[in-house]
């Protein structure tokens, strides 16, 4: 819990940025125009390379830079949603042409993106996808289906993982593309969940077209590229929320930012409930009078202890990362413990609410929040990799246990797989 001392570099950078903001920041500018200035100056993504809209500064300076922005209330580049995963992926694997065509409009917020990885037949086994891309001599033709695609209904571009070789082993037969979502061969349908929300989409490809120059990396290298995207997704889960809060200030640029945030964050409205809303447990036990029940006290205590210990565990992981130590087991355990916390919280909420746990909507306690928790928590142990998969990862990568025998080696064509999902 020590405060790192301020380096001379930080002092210089802060001064430079402060002067730049004083000269350029105006609330009555349009959001897009302002962000183009950020892109041109490199202050929008200061840790990115100089040739690609950055200033090549160390990541460690980002908090200080953010603080300067906050001090004057300046809005940053577009940082929420899948677009930043797209940017990170293209920075690492894209050609100069990709970077030139896509990065600027990602940062300006003019383009939104979605991630087309999960399929009806391949979730845990992400590399088992069967959406196919075939080269017809001039361009790629895509057929198949994706599932769980957040924001597909308003995205301009998609990060697409598709099979290009059916005779290669499954990880080697995949390729990576940037697909234009606004074309006749792409159909997007909302997918309703058990909690009543429709935060995701099904995406159908029927002879959808990808120009040759929208392929990222080499044919057969798609899995490697997708792993980059997923690594950033895992790393930036917190950032998504952090930048998802609209500023309360008045002014044109803030209005435009608020509208952007509302659109991008809409699918995530129920995410706090899916994590179990531990914050509500104690106040509700008190306000309902259920705190007098020894059964409630026991379960509540278990929940609070579990939840707080899991936060400390996460902080240990962050601390290790910041001080450059090798990552311990804390990171992999974090995803699993989140499921335990969510499930325990749902049980505690049901225990506290009693008969009211049967009710929903306006009749449910906390204006529907309790019902939403009870019906959203099941997602936590599935989304982003199921608990069973997390346990396998912990067993094999953290505890170094022998791997289970593989039954999916050899040509992909020969591996047993699921029939296509009927198109409803």
């Amino acid at each position, binding site marked *: 819990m020590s405060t790192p001392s301020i380096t001379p570099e930080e002092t210089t950078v802060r001064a430079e940025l402060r002067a730049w903001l004083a000269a350029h920041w105006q609330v009555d500018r349009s959001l897009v125009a302002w962000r183009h200035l950020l892109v041109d100056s490199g202050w929008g993504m200061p840790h990115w390379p100089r040739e690609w809209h950055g200033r090549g500064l160390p990541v460690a300076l980002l908090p200080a830079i953010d603080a300067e922005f906050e001090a004057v209330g300046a809005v940053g580049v577009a940082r929420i949603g899948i677009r930043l995963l797209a940017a990170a992926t293209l920075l690492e694997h894209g050609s100069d042409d990709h970077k030139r065509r896509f990065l600027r409009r990602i940062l300006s917020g003019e383009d939104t993106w979605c991630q087309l990885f999960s399929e009806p*037949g391949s979730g845990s086994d992400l590399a088992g996808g069967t959406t196919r891309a075939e080269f017809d001599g001039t361009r790629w033709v895509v057929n198949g289906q994706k599932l769980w695609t957040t924001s597909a209904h308003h995205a301009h571009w998609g990060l697409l993982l598709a099979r290009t070789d059916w005779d290669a082993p499954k990880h080697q037969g995949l390729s990576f593309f940037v697909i234009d979502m606004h074309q006749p061969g792409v159909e997007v349908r909302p997918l309703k969940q058990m909690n009543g929300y429709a935060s995701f989409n099904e995406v159908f490809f029927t002879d959808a077209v990808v120009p040759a120059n929208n392929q990222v990396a080499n044919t057969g290298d798609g899995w490697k590229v997708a792993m980059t995207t997923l690594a950033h997704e895992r790393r930036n889960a917190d950032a998504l929320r952090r930048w998802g809060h609209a500023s309360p200030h008045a002014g044109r640029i803030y209005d435009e930012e608020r509208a952007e945030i509302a659109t991008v964050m809409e699918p995530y409205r129920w995410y706090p409930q899916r994590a179990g809303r531990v914050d509500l447990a104690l106040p509700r036990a008190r306000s309902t009078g259920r705190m007098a029940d020894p059964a409630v006290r026991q379960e509540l205590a278990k929940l609070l202890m579990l939840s707080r210990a899991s936060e400390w565990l996460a902080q240990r992981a962050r601390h290790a990362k910041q001080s450059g130590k090798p990552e311990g087991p804390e990171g992999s355990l974090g995803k699993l413990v989140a499921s335990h916390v969510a499930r325990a919280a749902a049980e505690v909420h049901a225990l506290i609410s009693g008969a*009211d746990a049967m*009710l929903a909507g306006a009749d449910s306690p906390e204006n529907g929040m309790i019902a939403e928790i009870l019906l959203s928590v099941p997602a936590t142990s599935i989304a982003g990799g199921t608990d069973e998969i997390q346990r396998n990862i912990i067993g094999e990568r953290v505890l170094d246990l022998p791997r289970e025998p593989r039954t999916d080696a050899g040509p992909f064509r020969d591996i047993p797989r699921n029939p296509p999902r009927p198109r409803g």
Partner: protein
Amino acid sequence: MHFGYTDEQEQFRGIVARFLRERAPVSAVRAQMASERGHDPALWRGIAGELGLTGVHVPEHLGGQGFGLEELCIAQEEFGRALTCAPFFASTVLATTALLEIADEAEQEALLPALVAGERVGTLAWVEQGGDWSASACAMLATPAADGVRLNGHKHYVIDGLAADRLLVVARTPGSVGNAGLGLYAVEADAAGLVRRGLETIDTTRRQAALVLTDCPARRLGAGRDFTSGFARLMDRATIALAAEMVGGAHALLDAAVDYAKLRMQFGRPIGAFQAIKHKLAEMLLEVELATAAVRYAAAAADANDAETSLLASHAKAMASDASMRAAVEAVQIHGGIGFTWDNDTHLWFKRARSSAVLLGDAALHRERYIALTEAAA
């Protein structure tokens, strides 16, 4: 005490199961849960008229089939398995049993035939907002009037409270406390001063309502019998019957998860080949079978008027609550993402399990009651 069903009971189960498979498949469940009434009157007529289920535990001289709670529970298990949208729990389990256990003989002769014939849908309104399931917590007042009684107060979580047209309401005389002064009252569906409002529920296959009664005319039932012991017998039986429905639902969740684990391929093999899934399903089966054993033992004991019936009702409900919630949570988990979607059927049973786990008292309440009754008997 026998530990298996007789051939007749097995046959009976087969008839109910086949009827529900044919007449109330999940497509019908989805249609009814989205409908305004919440159930299909034609199906209800079939349940009552063709199968006679609405009188299964009613003595023959009152128009019923003269069986016991065991047979009622067989029907309940099948309703739970099929997730049938019908006012069976409200009308047959709650209201009909209430009349049998609490009303006088002449009142039974007057009121039961319409319920047994399925011409009327009954329900029992005893709980009030906050959800204390004991009758002694009842605050609704019954004040004498020239032509009977007037009721004032409110009721909450009334099962099928909108669909019902035979309302049985628990209320107390002014100035009374605890179990003293409690009574059962019949209220006409169109009575002046009765306002009903549908409650929004997580389980839309079983509706609930809130009632507000303001100087509402009512008729006392069972004045010649002891309300407290009758109500206790009613609650024990209703609790066991609900637990039966819950284990039926848990079996359906388990079956669906097992089927899916055999079909769904990941990493080149069915997910049921992974021990994580196999072991989970084995534990689910164990828990569901234990709860089923507890339910069936309790039902048989109730029919034999076993002195342990109350304790066994709590035993059955506590285990059924835990087992059905476990089955629900794990069935969604085994289905993966698809199990979280609306179009997959798992969530329908999940929501019933979630709701039934607290209806008539959650597992913690019944475990507490189990120990209290054990100590009282020692």
